[in-house]
């Protein structure tokens, strides 16, 4: 009986906690959400064989704040591989990264980043309008207050990355700036 009561209490507490958590998550901050996206997206990308543990680099400041720190050490994509997180200075070597988030202040370096990441197995990610068309592989955008992402498949292929069809089915696929 006592056991049952504890079980019930636990379940009840769990349910209450969920209730308490759900509304909080209904209004997460934009970058908390984007950080979670990046963590999930990494699970659907296959890097060239022999890649080091997933290493997320952020260039151009840290728009994620603490959400970035929370990703550090999280297992991804498999439990034995822990995620590394590095904030890069402008001019740092990006070839050590497996994922590179290019924050908008680094916008004017995008073309160089795209050139360097070509064939280097780096998943380039951004959240600035037009980034994917200019060669970033994944680019977040907002639509009706929800985070969406677009994928430039050509660049990802050239970069030596395989992106799962599941991820592609959720994304808007873009090409380099095609004429209309």
């Amino acid at each position, binding site marked *: 009986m006592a056991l049952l009561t504890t079980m019930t209490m636990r379940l009840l*507490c769990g349910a209450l906690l969920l209730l308490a958590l759900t509304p909080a998550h*209904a209004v997460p901050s934009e970058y908390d959400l984007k950080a979670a996206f990046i963590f*999930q997206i990494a699970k659907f990308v296959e890097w060239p064989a022999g890649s080091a543990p997933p290493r997320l680099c952020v260039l151009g400041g840290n728009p994620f704040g603490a959400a970035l720190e929370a990703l550090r050490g999280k297992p991804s994509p498999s439990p034995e591989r822990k995620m590394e997180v590095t904030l890069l200075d*402008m*001019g740092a070597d*990006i070839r050590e990264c497996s994922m590179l988030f290019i924050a908008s202040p680094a916008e004017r370096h995008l073309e160089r980043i795209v050139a360097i990441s070509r064939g*280097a197995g780096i998943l380039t990610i951004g959240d600035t309008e*037009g980034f994917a068309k200019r060669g970033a592989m994944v680019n977040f955008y907002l639509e009706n*207050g929800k985070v969406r992402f677009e994928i430039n498949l050509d660049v990802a292929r050239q970069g030596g990355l395989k992106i799962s069809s599941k991820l592609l089915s959720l994304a808007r696929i873009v090409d380099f700036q095609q004429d209309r």
Partner: protein
Amino acid sequence: MPGNAPIVMNRNLQALRMSRRLLLFFCLLLQPTGVSANVSADDSASLTDYSLEQLMDLSVAVTSAARKPQKLEDAAAAIYVITQEDIRRSGMTSLPELLRMAPGMQVAHIDGSTWAISSRGFNAKNSDNLLVMLDGRVLHTPTFTGVYWDAQDVVLEDIERIEVIRGPGGALWGANAVSGVINIITKSASATQGGLVSGGGGNFERQGTVRYGGKINETGNFRIYARNIAQDNFRLASGADAHDQRDLRSAGFRADWGLAGGNSLTVQGDTYASDSDHTGSAISLSPPSSTPIGYTIDQKGGNLLTRWKRALSTTSEWTAQFYYDYYERRYLNVDERRDTYDLDFQHRFLWGDAHDIVWGAGYRQTGDRMDNTIVVAFDPARRDDRVAGAFFQDEIALNRDKDLHLIVGSKFEHNDYTGFEHQPNVRLRWKLDEQRTVWTALSRAVHTPSRTDADGLVTTTLLPATGGIANVMQLQGNPAVQSEHVRAFEAGYRIHPSTRAQMDVSAFYNAHRNLMTIEPADPYLVAGAQPYRIMPRIFYNKASATTYGLEWSGNWQPSDKWQFKAAYTWLQMNIRRDADSLDTSIESEVGRSPQNQFQLHVFHSPSAHVDLSGALYYVDSLPSLNVPAYVRLDARIGWRIRRDLELSLTGRNLLDSRQPEFVNTSGPRTSEVSRSLFGAATWRF
């Protein structure tokens, strides 16, 4: 974006966190084993446990400000960009027509294939103050440092953008970027995949384009094209044919590779042949008479360009570019051939946190061969010239917030006509906030003498005979002629209160010195069976000028269906010749550029398949040329009947059956620009 919403949200979150803590407290009391660890982790940590689909269902609390690339707003110069969308919606079919859209430019159609194009004054048929480039290749010819517009063409659908910079650009681009730089940039081959067939015709011109783009293995893309344009004659004021038709055939390719290790390679080339009809004056010495004569200019040419770009790091890259350009231009008995080789290198890097540095060096060799005639000759008939130069520019962030930038730089160049030239500039850009930017600039630029200025011998006019001997005026180059130079002061203000509204104002004050004048020299007799007297007119630097003006442009897009663009340009010129100058015509240059210009563009898309556009231009009178002020209306309707097929109908100069926009000062007759209709179809596959 700071505002009320985030504060409210934070409060809510705080309240929620509080209630969760209370709940946690209760649970801890109730259950001896405590709760699982991830419950106490913060929000974002648990967000990572959500699946992608769940994440996509969540709304974010704060909508970030639009983060469009804001390079244009960041320029410390009077810059305007004509986009591919602007080009498509305009319905225009040639490069010079597109430049009309750029605020602050003076663009006038002289006859079928001849244009007067300049910025900030001094407009003329052989306007020589603008630097015009297509994908890094200089379009103007050193023969007169202007552009042979009759022989220029490009697949308009393949243009990515045209950057029009008013004001001196000598510090980066070198000589002859005195009053502006026009940079025509075509799309990378990766952006022109698939096929395009477009064709059209109307009462003034017909044209057709075929282009196909594909892949070259994994890393490269290419496109090839062929194109033909055929323009009919305009009319003279009398209604007669103006004899100014043009036909141009061109073909070319571009290939781009993105290679591993940060390397990109571009190879592109074009070949073309054009023929255009013109009217000149045939001078006959017995009896002395001058009669109009029709002739055709044939130009053939080609070019090959390769550009290698290498990113060394995220903040450092270099570009090396080489091109070869060839043309041969023939008319009457004149034959001009020119080969140009140009090598250019530049390196850009960030130095520390505050310096964005670009430096580079270039070398250009151009050689010509002129078949001299009695009317047009060059002394010497062959000439090879070299220009070697180097430049640097440092954009310095003056404060921690990086909203105040100082830009300093200069080009140093050596040319075979005037030796060393320096062209420094200093610019200051202050970003007041996200919406507003002010900038100011002080610069010096030079116009180096052209081959004609230094070596030309052009017989122009027959003057009344004296004593039975014909008098012929001959324009003579002067090997000692100096560079013209300008000191320019500019300032501008840009505001974009939203992504749907922008406004740009710039003002300039230019002090031109050493302007070329044409001075009479002592006449001399040329003996022969038919003796005649030459009245030489020789180039000297004996004038100066001050010009100032104001350029305003605005863009407003109240909804996705409507867009309005407007521009106003006000220009004042004062030209003074030196006390010892006898060139009485130089001062009349003032009346060849309109004092006031206004343009209004309206774009409307009533549905997803239909676009309407209208462009209204007001151009002030040109008193020196007796060209009255005029209003010009162009309009276009485009209809996308299928995803891959668009039809359009464009009307040009709709308000007037014909009107002059300029006067051909080097020919006996003036063409008037006709009203024209042009229907076109574009199919992509």
